[in-house]
């Protein structure tokens, strides 16, 4: 397939269609609405299912119903809408069935704004819905990666019978880049041995997230944990840039990761031995790779568009061996490469104070700078 200039949201939607998406249920919310709009035209023309639900609550429960039949199904939303989906996300996780979700994050909390943010990292990676569960969380940083991860998301969801979420933001959703879409895969409705699609010639099946008897619930919790261990062992994804001789390591995902790439290149041009580590799977998180890098590097710089949510995972992996510094823009503001470059220069040339939590230190620096 030839490269086309595609908008992130449209690219994800079309990639899902080509990956065999059979049904979409969603509700309009900026900045993800192009996903819903594209599918509202595309799915009916292919004889597949599109429903604009009355709310994100209804949408995720429609996804839940369709997922129970073993159909490839998805929804998409943006931060406030994803909060409404948390109920269904927990139920789907507890029922151990596959579904794919997209969160095109925007500024928050609350109604916030519609500009790009990464404020939902914790909600996606460390829970959000109630109970013990994990979902696979993938963070694309380009339109091509959005396409590739969208296709992968369906395969992973089915392989592990769990939700796979693409965690992206308005910047990637609204951006156009040349990208290549996959070939159209035929829609194959697999006859899963768990699907509730009518007990024709077989025993009836029940799909439920209720285990009223605590020992059975515990057994379920343990099974979920064992599945998650398999995911952790097999599905860690990341990308490395200029790490071979790097003394300093910048870590960022999605949009902040690609902004950091520009800064890292600029710093390299100034002779600073700096590299970039960009996690792609945020859950499972590449702890082991960070752990290994911490043996070689002299400092880390974590760049996020939130108040340091991934920062805590980096600190967990680094375990105090070297300083971990932090830089962020919040509220729907995307940092410019210059800002990250100044931070790299600071990390490379000054003695770092490790007494203070990097978030507090950053907040003090940032506030002082803004007040000047």
């Amino acid at each position, binding site marked *: 397939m030839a490269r086309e200039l595609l908008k992130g949201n449209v690219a994800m939607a079309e990639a899902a269609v080509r990956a065999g998406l059979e049904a979409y249920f969603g509700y309009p919310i*900026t900045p993800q609405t192009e996903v819903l709009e594209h599918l509202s035209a595309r799915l009916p023309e292919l004889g597949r299912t599109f429903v604009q639900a009355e709310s994100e609550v209804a949408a995720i429960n429609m996804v839940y119903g369709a997922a129970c039949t073993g159909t490839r199904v998805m929804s998409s939303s943006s931060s406030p809408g994803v909060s409404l989906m948390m109920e269904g996300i927990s139920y789907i996780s507890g029922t151990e069935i596959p579904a794919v979700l997209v969160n095109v994050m925007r500024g928050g909390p609350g109604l916030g704004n519609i500009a790009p943010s990464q404020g939902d990292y914790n909600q996606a990676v460390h829970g959000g819905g109630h109970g013990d569960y994990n979902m696979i969380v993938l963070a694309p940083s*380009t339109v091509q990666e959005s396409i590739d991860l969208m296709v992968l998301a369906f395969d992973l969801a089915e392989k592990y019978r769990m939700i796979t979420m693409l965690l992206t933001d308005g910047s990637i959703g609204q*951006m156009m880049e040349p990208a290549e879409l996959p070939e159209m895969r035929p829609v194959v409705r697999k006859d899963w041995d768990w699907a509730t699609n009518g007990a024709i010639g077989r025993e009836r099946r029940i799909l439920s997230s209720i285990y009223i008897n605590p020992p059975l619930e515990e057994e379920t919790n343990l099974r979920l944990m064992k599945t998650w261990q398999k995911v952790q062992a097999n599905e860690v994804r990341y990308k490395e840039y200029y790490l071979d001789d790097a003394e300093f390591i910048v870590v960022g995902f999605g949009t902040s990761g690609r902004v950091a*790439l520009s800064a890292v290149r600029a710093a390299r041009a100034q002779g600073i031995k700096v590299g970039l580590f960009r996690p792609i799977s945020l859950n499972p998180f590449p702890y082991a790779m960070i752990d290994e890098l911490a043996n070689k590097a002299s400092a880390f710089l974590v760049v996020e568009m939130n108040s340091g949510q991934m920062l805590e995972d980096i600190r967990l992996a680094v375990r105090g061996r070297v300083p971990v510094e932090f830089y962020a823009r919040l509220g729907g503001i*995307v940092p*410019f490469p210059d800002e990250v470059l100044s931070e790299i220069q600071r990390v490379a040339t000054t003695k770092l104070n490790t007494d203070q939590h990097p978030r507090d230190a950053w907040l003090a620096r940032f506030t002082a700078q803004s007040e000047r």
Partner: protein
Amino acid sequence: MQKEILIAGFGGQGALFAGQVMAYAAMDNGKEVTWIPSYGPEMRGGTANCTVVIADDEIGSPLVKNPPAVIAFNLPSFDKYEELVQPGGVLIVNQSMVDRGASRTDIITIFVPGNELAEEIGDRRLLNMVMVGALLTRLPELSIQDIETALNAHLPERHKKLLPQNRLALQRGYDYAQKELEKQII
């Protein structure tokens, strides 16, 4: 190689499409490219901005603080972005919509009466192509031929009848800017 271009105007002046056409042309030339709009409440009837980055390698940030090339379609855009243009960069201003001259001397500022030139060709909507044509005088990464080829390849079929006019607009903008540049150099 990497070049960033910021295009800003009112909604309806064709700033976003101007950026897309350049993005298509760069892609067809085998370059990496990003096109990103400023989206937000302001997209509903207010200002419309986009940034295009053209590069040989994987593009990092799709936004830059100090772009080396800017097109300002109106006074608010001129006011906002004049000070942000990278030193040594180029700023194309739609003279039809501004009432002041340049305040910076460390960049090249070219004033183009875009509305009048577009109307002379016969369609006010050609403003964006006039402005793109003007920028091409200082943008070695893309040629008029590249833009034409991109329009031909990516314009929806129903708009293709406008191709000759678009070509004319690009050329008119280019020629006007070229003359202005020659004046400045002299």
